């Protein structure tokens, strides 16, 4: 059971419990603010006052990040004998049409996330631009999936609902309009 993929009705409530425990510790559940903390630690305060913060007060969240790195290691190396993700047949077909032969057979598409893929400069650009949009977008919106979709909506915040609508506008545009242009075969 532990070694099989976990169903949604196990994962969702556990995520909510993690959020509640962080609140009960006097903190909050939000992963993207760590990106700013990394900037501050790297000396970004020299370029903008925005990054002049006391990073000690952010240390607890960096420990959560450290934990999630450990969790990823344990999940991948100890708990997942078969990492292939059993996505729907329809999705597999759509991805194969975009040139993703690894659909249904891996955890991440080897066409983007493998050492061989990195011999293609286009893959570097895709990954870097994707990351840039994640970092810029989450800080602009003041939160990501954890901060807005889980924490904010759990607290019935209208701003979080607007942000989540934005997440879907962007995600749907990327997958339906831009993927055929980016991954044209």
């Amino acid at each position, binding site marked *: 059971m532990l070694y099989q*993929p*976990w*169903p*949604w009705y196990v*994962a*969702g409530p556990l*995520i909510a419990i*993690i*959020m509640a425990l*962080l609140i*009960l*510790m*006097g903190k909050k559940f939000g992963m*993207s603010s760590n990106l700013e903390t990394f900037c501050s630690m790297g000396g970004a305060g020299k*370029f903008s006052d925005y990054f002049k913060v006391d990073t000690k007060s952010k240390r607890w*969240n960096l420990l*959560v990040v450290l*934990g*999630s*790195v*450990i*969790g*990823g290691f344990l999940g991948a190396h100890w708990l997942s004998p078969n990492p292939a*993700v059993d996505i729907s047949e329809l999705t597999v077909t759509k991805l194969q049409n975009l040139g993703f032969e690894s*659909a*249904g057979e891996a955890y*991440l*598409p080897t066409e983007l*996330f493998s*050492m061989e893929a990195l011999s293609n400069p286009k*893959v570097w650009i895709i*990954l*870097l*631009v*994707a*990351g840039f*949009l994640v*970092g*810029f*977008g*989450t*800080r602009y*919106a003041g939160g990501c*999936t*954890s901060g807005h*979709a*889980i*924490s904010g909506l*759990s*607290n*019935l915040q209208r701003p979080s609902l607007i*942000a989540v609508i*934005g*997440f879907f506008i*962007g*995600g*749907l545009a*990327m*997958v339906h309009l831009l993927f055929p242009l*980016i991954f044209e075969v």
Partner: protein
Amino acid sequence: MKNIVYILLGTFLGIVLYKSEAASWFRIYEMFQFDSFHMYGIIGSALAVGVVLVFWIKKSKIKSFSGEIIQIPDKEKSFARYILGGTLFGLGWALAGACPGPIYILVGAGNWPIIIVLVGAILGAFVYGLVRARLPH
């Protein structure tokens, strides 16, 4: 002691998101294609439980474990920053197939190319800090 709890909560989060495949690029693509209920089930059930827990924490006025009053501040009111920032993040989320939590988790899982995504994300946060005064908020 508290430090260990933060690390353990993160570890637990990492295992949950990895094992439920919420950290898989394929699941994010599938979600935006509306081909499976899986991701909606994860977010939906997290919310169902989350709304109840947050309501209970606020209603019961329970103190934090260290005895402080718990404050859950409201998000600052605005429209532009949430819709624009949200849309930019959505574009990146679908392309990278990972939001910030899963990015860290996938580093731990040993999917090294995700480090390029992480570098891009830190760069994105940095550039936001530089130009934020000129953006509509």
